[in-house]
């Protein structure tokens, strides 16, 4: 992530220039390769992520506003498709699905047989327009879910067309988290959009370069355009006002009982929205379901939240009954013990937990008061 800071170099001299119409050629090339292309799109006045068949489905002409507990997307005169904050849901659900079948059972001559979930042949994915914070989150999940076969299968086949951020919403703090606004090392191609909607495409891997070549995109970007693009990204970085309070985090790590959690505890509804929208929260529960027709059973791995009361249940009761203790678990795991477990922070600075918290709890301010 060293190359993602606000003062990174200009795009590679080999970067190519794209007109808005060229995006369709790029998406078509990925689809012709047999990939399912996932990208940002607007649905019910919210920017979300879904399969896209063409550039017309991108959120061109939409602007979003995000602040603690508030999200608004509104149509505007803008020509850009990528000048927005993080989409409502993160990309993790395409790699680490909400529900994954683990095993099912069948009967052979009366004996129960366990059938591991079939590795269903799936089309490989292409992520189109993933932002720096969310790309860093994939790097985080790569470590946490390294042994998860379903995750690995999708991840290994993934092709990444990232988008540099040319705007920051009020909840963004990727600069402080060290993940953006320039996409880090996992991208195959990085797009940077100019104010008129035209783009610069910078291939970061050989297969990324091959995609651009197959799409017939070979018009060298001008130095002026490269400078404009870099300036837009620098400006987006400069607009960020939130930052992680490393001193407060260190204080909480050293003495979890001695820092003030009361301000959070009074507001946290333990709804779990933050864990659902977080691009790195990976916890799951495993649940049995019986089929009524043949009496056989299935086991499903389903997203879980450490904010639910039964998450840490042991016989006799939950280890963490108070909302404070559950918020503290999430906060300290994300920002402190993640380092012990996975050698990185669990927070990438996307700010979704701030936007989608119904009471606007702000992870960057949670314990500064």
């Amino acid at each position, binding site marked *: 992530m060293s190359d993602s800071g606000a003062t990174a170099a200009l795009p590679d001299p080999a970067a190519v220039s794209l007109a808005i119409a060229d995006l369709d050629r790029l998406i078509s090339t990925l689809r012709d390769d047999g990939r399912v292309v996932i990208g940002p799109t607007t649905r019910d006045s919210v920017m979300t992520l879904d399969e896209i068949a063409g550039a017309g489905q991108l959120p061109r002409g939409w602007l979003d506003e995000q602040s603690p507990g508030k999200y608004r997307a509104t149509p505007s005169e803008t020509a850009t498709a990528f000048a927005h904050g993080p989409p409502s849901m993160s990309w993790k659900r395409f790699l680490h699905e909400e529900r994954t079948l*683990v*095993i099912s*059972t069948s009967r052979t001559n009366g*004996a*129960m*047989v*366990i059938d*591991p979930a079939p590795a269903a042949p799936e089309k490989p994915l292409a992520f189109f327009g993933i932002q720096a914070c969310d790309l860093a989150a994939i790097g985080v999940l790569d470590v*946490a*879910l390294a*042994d*998860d076969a379903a995750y690995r299968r999708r991840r290994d086949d993934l092709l990444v067309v990232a988008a540099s951020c040319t705007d920051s919403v009020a909840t963004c703090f990727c600069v402080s988290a060290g993940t953006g606004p320039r996409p880090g090392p996992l991208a195959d191609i990085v797009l940077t959009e100019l104010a008129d909607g035209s783009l610069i495409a910078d291939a970061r891997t050989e297969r990324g370069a091959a995609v651009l070549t197959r799409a017939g995109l070979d018009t060298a970007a001008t130095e002026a355009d490269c400078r404009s693009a870099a300036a837009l990204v620098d400006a987006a970085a400069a607009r960020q006002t939130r930052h992680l309070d490393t001193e407060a985090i260190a204080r909480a790590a050293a003495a*979890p*009982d001695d820092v003030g959690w009361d301000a959070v505890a009074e507001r946290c509804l333990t709804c779990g929205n933050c864990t659902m929208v977080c691009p790195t929260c*990976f*916890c*799951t*529960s*495993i*649940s*049995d379901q*019986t089929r009524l027709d043949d*009496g056989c*059973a299935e*086991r499903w*791995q389903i997203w*879980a939240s*450490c904010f639910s009361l039964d*998450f*840490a*249940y*042991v*016989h006799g009761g939950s*280890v*963490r*009954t*108070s909302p*404070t*203790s559950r918020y503290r*678990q999430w906060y*300290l*795991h994300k920002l402190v*013990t993640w380092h*012990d*477990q*996975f*050698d990185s922070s669990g927070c990438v600075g996307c700010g979704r937990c701030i936007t989608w918290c119904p009471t606007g709890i702000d992870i960057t301010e949670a314990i500064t008061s």
Partner: protein
Amino acid sequence: MRSEPAVTTLVPTMATVEAVRRELDDTVTLSLALSEPSLTPTPGQFAMLWAPGVGEVAISYSGVGDGSRVDHTIRDVGATTRALTTCEPGAELGSRGPFGRGWDLSRLPGRRLLIIAGGLGLAPLRPVVEAATAGTLGTSSAQLLVGARSPDAMLYRDEISTHWASLEPQLTVDHATDTWKGGVGPVTIALGSAIGDPATVEAIVCGPEIMMRVVARELMDRDVAPDAIQVSLERNMQCGVARCGHCQLGPLFTCVDGPVLRWDEAEPLLAVRER
């Protein structure tokens, strides 16, 4: 970085219940024959036992066998353990494991071993007790201390009074009956006479968390070093492979970094309320 689990699968192996032994009103020991042998469990490790269609639960090995035949002592406390404890011989279950870090038996040679159990905590200690009885641990001496709520809640009473008598068992109960001949009170009342030279003691402790705290504190008050005390922690375990997240305790995934911890590792974590 976390410990790497030796077993990483979420797919159970089928197992057949070969024998069911009733231990207490609500507790049975199942002897299982695995359809495919697992790694030989270390005492203190656990398996995820699956009652098909009901659920999976972490149960320690009370008999480690050779990986093909294992014992689990299970108390009926919920839907899944109800299904497991009401199994008949011949029933089919699923089993995954062995998981976690077991008792560190490499510390025992030449030392005075105190095996201290509270209630059902005797179950994960049973393989250690049997090895101590057989004299295979290399200890200079060994003693068994067992506490229970009442005489009829004391696990393995027949074995304690017969096969395990050489460990000079000290038994205590919270609530005695007229015929009870052991101690009355917490298991710590027997500690004073059991410790001997504290510098030689290695204590292996399993029971409710509050019991383990009290025992560890008492041992340290009597100059046993915190790193010579091993405890086994209970947390919500669903995967056993450090992936589901439920068993986290501070930086640890209890399922792979535990369940057995030395007291110098466990104490600072347990000192934080509701961690």
